[in-house]
């Protein structure tokens, strides 16, 4: 289970829509499965079918998470033309066994879809792994 607010989800959708036709990516910092902050990062790959978090953004986020005593709850990215489901590439390049992988699908751009998965591999460098969906709980924004 991963918990985020409607506003955070909206922020992720907005990021994905602004980034079209390229994929966008970012990190979710938080504690115990609850997202506290959405970090938008740059997509070094600049591609509609690939993403790689800009290394400079990656370390900045790592340091900020550490400074604020937050965990890396999840890594999100968009699929512009396909489903919100990890591709083979997503599985192959999943090196964060403890983080959730969140995918936004823009196939129906009027109705973006967000889903979360855990990608389980014996070794982080394995090419293949199991994909387990994790439910997302969207909470109303705090007043």
């Amino acid at each position, binding site marked *: 289970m991963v918990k985020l607010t409607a506003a955070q989800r909206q922020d992720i959708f907005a990021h994905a829509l602004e980034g079209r036709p390229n994929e966008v990516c970012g990190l979710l910092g938080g504690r115990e499965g609850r997202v506290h902050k959405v970090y938008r990062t740059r997509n070094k790959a600049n591609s509609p079918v690939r993403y790689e978090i800009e290394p400079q953004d990656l370390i900045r986020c790592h340091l900020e998470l550490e400074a604020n005593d937050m965990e890396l709850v999840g890594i999100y990215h968009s699929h512009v033309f*396909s489903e919100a489901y990890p591709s083979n590439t997503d599985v192959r390049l999943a*090196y964060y066994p403890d983080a959730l992988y969140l995918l936004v699908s823009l196939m129906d751009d009027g109705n973006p879809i967000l889903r979360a998965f855990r990608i389980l591999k014996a070794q982080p460098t394995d090419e293949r792994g199991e994909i387990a969906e994790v439910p997302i709980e969207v909470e109303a924004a705090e007043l």
Partner: protein
Amino acid sequence: MVKVYIPTVLRKITNGQTRVEAEAADIRSLLDRLEARFPGLKGQLVDSQGNLFRFVNVYVNNREVDELQGLGTPLREEDEVALIPAMAGGAVGGAFSLEQGLRYARHIILPEIGGQGQRKLLRSKVLLIGAGGLGSPAALYLGAAGVGTMGIVDFDTVDLTNLHRQILHGHKNIGRLKVDSARETVNDINPDVQVVPHREALTSANALEIIGQYDLVVNGCDNFATRYLANDACYFLKKPLVDGSIFRFEGQATVFMPGKGCYRCLFPAPPPPGAVPSCAEAGVLGVLPGIIGVIQAIETIKLILGLGEPLVNRLLLFDSLAMEFREVKIRRAPDCPLCGDNPTVTELIDYEAFCGGPMATTGG
């Protein structure tokens, strides 16, 4: 001493340590030092040629070493090194290429089809008997829809008199084999489709072998001998048969599911030779096969996807002059010579003799 930040992924190797310290002049020697203390660590970071794996970002004082001097980046006292696996991925390598994602986008967003359904279509294998009047619209739409493998059986060549209805073929293709012309047209619309040409007539000798390679059969033949042959072969092989036929201004379509009735249940015996004129003799409204062939294409897609109510045990009759569709319930006949309780047809027979007419395998 250099301080090294170890990411979660690698902490199994460093016995859970988040930060380790080491003495080293550059990144390369640092990795060697770390390997000596934590065997297996280097193998996670560099390949057998000694190059950094692309998925690991190495930082010195928060700057990535790619921007510095790579593995040769010098290290000084108190430098901070961070090893952080990349976060990367993307839709490429998924079920669809970018082009496929766009091509099938309007299918994929239908919840009833989705990416899973589209993948089923791409994996499906459909055989068209005849690349004529019925086969033309069926092939065009099934190809456009992304039916991955499309076999076409037809021995005939394109004739000028075909062109008022057989829209797979163009004027420039007169004289060419219909299967070759069909393949070109279908691939022009959708290069994803593997069109398998069977440049021969469907006969008792080859029917089981050809039909056996496919998931289901779309019947667009124009003669009784082939119609009975396709019916019997599909029944023996347990393949669904999406049937259609046309005559002057009227057409009909149905789906025969093995065990739920067949063409012989409706017509145990063919009409006497010459009793029913062919398209060439009787004429046919050119648009008519468009309607019936497209209904066959829809039924084919529904069967592949397990969608909706298939046209099974129902014979759909279309009258273009009245512009009227009617439906007749049909069912398995217990006395059917093929699929009845006491079948007499237990293998493929001589269909030309049975029907008293030669076989042709092209749409009417």
